[in-house]
């Protein structure tokens, strides 16, 4: 069943916002799927990285509700392979930042068990809190 996508002023504003935050020319993504084929975290995602790019191209702010943007490990496997020279990690970061700048954290230190906190290296905790909290 074909789905009708309506582009509104609001959706265009959303695209522009993510383009500004990521400094990526998101509209040049031609949906080849190389990023999705390279992503180590794809098994944990609800939409693939290329689908996420398409959602942003169309200005769909539902991209902010995806699990995908929180599961990206910023490993840059997609970045080095993208034939259009795009960096999906930066797009995922821009999406996270839209939410985090509204003071909505994705990770709460109180939910991490004490034995995990004692064992985790500092670089794990610092990077997780920089990526997943505002």
């Amino acid at each position, binding site marked *: 069943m074909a789905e009708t996508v309506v582009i509104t002023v609001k959706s265009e504003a959303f695209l522009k916002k993510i383009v500004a935050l990521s400094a990526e020319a998101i509209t040049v993504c031609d949906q080849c799927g190389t990023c999705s084929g390279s992503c180590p975290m794809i098994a944990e995602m609800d939409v693939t990285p290329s689908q996420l790019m398409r959602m942003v191209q169309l200005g769909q702010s539902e991209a902010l509700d995806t699990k995908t943007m929180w599961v990206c490990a910023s490993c840059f496997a997609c970045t080095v392979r993208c034939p259009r020279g795009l960096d999906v990690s930066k797009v995922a970061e821009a999406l996270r930042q839209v939410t985090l700048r509204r003071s909505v954290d994705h990770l709460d230190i109180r939910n991490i068990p004490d034995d995990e906190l004692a064992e985790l290296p500092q670089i*794990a905790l610092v990077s997780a809190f920089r990526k*997943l909290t505002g």
Partner: protein
Amino acid sequence: MTSEQTSTTRAAPDTGSPKRTRLPYYPGCTLKTTGKGLEDSALAVAETLGVELVELPRWNCCGVVTSLTDDDLMRHIAPIRNMVRVQEVSDAGLVDDKRVVTLCSMCFNALKWSNARIVGDAEDLKSLNDFMYLEEDYRGDAEVVHFLEILKELDPEAIAEQVKTPLGELNVAPYYGCTLLRPKSIGIDDPEDPTIQQELLEIMGATVIDNPYKTVCCGSYQTVQDKYAVAELTHGILSHARAAGAEAVTTFCPLCAFNLDNRQREVLEKHPDFEPMPVFYFTQLMAVAFGLNPKCCRFDLNHTDPRPLLRGKGLMKEGA
């Protein structure tokens, strides 16, 4: 700006000369705790090779991950403040080079990336200097290198001369992960098929097992919010190394080390048939090959004890 323009000296020691090359050294927080086996073994290996790593005074956290949004200058203050420290020790004549050496792959990536971004934008550099008005202005001429790059600059013969216990029958798969390789502008080797660890392991006489999972991400900081997702990646990386013939893997990253080593506990919960595999810091194996005191390896901090494997291969004495 090229390295030729900014580097003052090369690290290669003159053979036969007792003079050590003094390089500024940024440890980062984890090298003082779970990554102590990396720091202690690397310092011992460097000393053996005539390189003195001079720890920066008053270093601070590098931020670990580079902020990827375009409007986030504030998040580059921490790494750039460390570059001010590099400039200070260089200006004071305490080191022979303006290239700061890192051991932790994540610190390497975060510092090099921030440095490149800020040095590449005069206005941003001025903004940060104005913000850090209590510091000397950072002139932007210091560089960030990884210890592997220093090792590669050395004469291979000089490294080979130090090998007292060739690693012989030890089948090792080098693991690179992400931050040594990606993005391309920051990485130190081919992002798809790196060989820098292999070349050095071969000098130490090891049997190197190459496999394509050497560049697959371990899950990084996702280990904090979903340890089982990371355990699946660990299972994939180590199982492929094992299938290719490896008995151990090497890394330079304390977070990769945690995910590949400590998360084997979660791997075993989900995959009871999994055979645990030791995860070495690269310099731990160098210290073994050089016949250095095993205390510098801090094998007590490894989750999967590598000592039975080393003893089985005759690379470590009983009781050591």
